């Protein structure tokens, strides 16, 4: 059982990230030490990827079926994207938040494991299955980074009594590709649904929530493009959109109509 190695992978992953974070916060202008905050998470991420690859080969199917499995991907993408953004922007708060976020998702997997079988019901045996879920996970990870960035922006705005335009721009730079990935995931899901079940859109609760998430980000994009001065409203909307996203992903079963969704699993 590869899953039993998750504990070790987790300790290594979190440990490397933690070390990177400590060096980032404490080291002062040491040329060699400064490379560590970039190097260590890279190793951590490779470890997690290797774990996913092994899990994949053991299950003989992509590990994308249960919530626990999608959390693995999510942790990996959040960690990867945080790392890329850090290289570009050197934003320390983002580094820490990304680390905490991916670690928490792995931790949930350890505390709430869902042991899984190899079996994939026939409808899931489709070439659209992998790109659909992977693109969604990537999109969620990018949009999480966008949300973290905007929260940093809100904090700075409060502290400095001046709108933190830079954070908003950084956040929007993530929202555009994140929203685009959301769009791709939705279209692939629609094509798949048409092939597997006969309708590209059935207004199933999970689909409707996904559309709602998409619409909120659509509003963010257009607000940003057409009304660049409404920055406070934009900050609020960006944070709120991510709440809708999280409900779509994790929370719809707690809403009145969520139970009936065919997509609720785990």
């Amino acid at each position, binding site marked *: 059982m590869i899953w039993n190695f998750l504990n070790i992978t987790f300790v290594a992953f979190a440990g490397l990230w933690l070390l990177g974070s400590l060096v980032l916060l404490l080291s002062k202008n040491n040329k060699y030490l400064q490379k560590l905050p970039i190097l260590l998470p890279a190793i951590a991420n490779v470890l997690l990827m290797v774990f996913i690859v092994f899990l994949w080969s053991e299950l003989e199917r992509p590990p994308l079926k249960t919530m626990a499995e999608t959390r693995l991907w999510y942790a990996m993408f959040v960690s990867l994207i945080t790392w890329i953004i850090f290289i570009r922007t050197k934003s320390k708060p983002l580094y820490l938040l990304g680390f905490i976020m991916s670690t928490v998702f792995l931790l949930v997997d350890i505390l709430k494991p869902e042991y899984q079988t190899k079996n994939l019901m026939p409808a899931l045996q489709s070439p659209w299955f992998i790109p659909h879920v992977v693109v969604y996970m990537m999109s969620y990870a990018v949009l999480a980074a966008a949300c973290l960035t905007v929260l940093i922006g809100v904090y700075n705005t409060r502290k400095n009594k001046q709108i933190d335009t830079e954070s908003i721009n950084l956040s929007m730079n993530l929202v555009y590709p994140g929203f*685009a990935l959301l769009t791709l995931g939705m279209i692939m899901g629609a094509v798949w649904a048409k092939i597997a079940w006969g309708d590209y859109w059935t207004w199933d609760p999970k689909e409707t929530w996904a559309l709602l998430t998409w619409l909120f980000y659509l*509003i963010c994009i257009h607000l940003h493009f057409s009304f660049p001065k409404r920055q406070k409203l934009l900050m609020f909307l960006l944070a709120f959109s991510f709440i809708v996203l999280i409900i779509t992903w994790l929370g719809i079963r707690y809403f009145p*109509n969520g139970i009936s969704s065919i997509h609720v699993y785990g």
Partner: protein
Amino acid sequence: MNNANRNISLIIPTVLIILGCVLQFFFDAFPLQYFKFPINLIVIIQLIAIIVALYLFLKNKKFVKFLSSGYAAISSISLFTLLVTIMVLTHQNGSDKGIVAALGFNNVIETWLYAFSSLYMLISLGLVIMRRLSFSNFRNVFFFINHFGLWLVIAIASLGQADKIKINLTIPEGELIWYGYDYNDNYFEPDFAILLNKFNIDYYDTKLAIVDDYGKMYDAKMFQPCEISKGKIISFENYVFETVNVYEDAVIARDTILFVKGLPEKSIVAEILIKNIEDKTETKAYMQNSTSFHPPQPLELDKDLHLVLLNPEPKYFGSEIELFTKSGIKNEKHKIEVNKPLVLNNWTIYQTSYFKSPEYSGFVSVFTAVYDPWLKSVYIGFALIFIGGIYLIFSRQTKKNNLK
């Protein structure tokens, strides 16, 4: 001008909400069924004509300027978002009563307000496209691709809905069926018939699991249900389970096994050797999964734990059929499987499910046939949005924006 625009962007949704609710209250659901072909095609052409004409002849009028502005974009998308918010917060199966039902909020997509909201979005989106219609640079081209793709999808998916037919055909092995029933159990004859030659099904291996006295699955951290096949050895605490043999289409009768063909469900008997390492005892016994014709035969491990066989899950199912069409009595052989539907003109035929019934010796295969003449056009819209999406991933949006 700006203040005026902001006011209009609030007034239009308000007026639409009031109008939509009033119409809903007096006339009930929006009559989409009147928009069958060719009416829907005419409406789409008219809509395009109106948008082009508005732009060409009235583009300097305040109202048209508003409709092609960011104000109208935010206003129309927000109104639509409001409707989708109602949908996620209420049951959408028409079951609620009272004011919610009177306003149609228990089935939002069939309301007048939903129709108005879509129309508002189509007109503003259409005028935005006209205003930005220029292929002078990449940005404009992709702007067009994104927005026009969405326009196509909204217009055609909504209006094309009226032409859609969806029926279920239930066909026992060896029989020819030329009719089906829709969701409301209305009889319908499509222009084809299906002869089911053979139904094929394949299962995953059955699984061995441990349950407690109440039938609850044993803690997954200690033991997970595990697929078994001949020779497989599984250990658990001080036990070792060896699978001596697995028999398909079998049931336990007293102390022997009986082979039975044509059982309605997958019935499996496993011969298991249980070795207790501690007291060095060995027991060999048969066990069987649970079907609606036979109770499960578990094995007792100790006082409150039992070994059970889980029902095997289907891995594959599909039908070998012959297709007869009215236009020319040609019969063709095809395979229809899950995820591999058969496309026939504007019909798509899906393998939906299967069952066994005492009336028939073989399987009964359930197909869903969907008629959607607008599908290709919607897919063109999907393709455009997809291409636009790929551009959006790699384009840098904020830098240019800051220059403004």
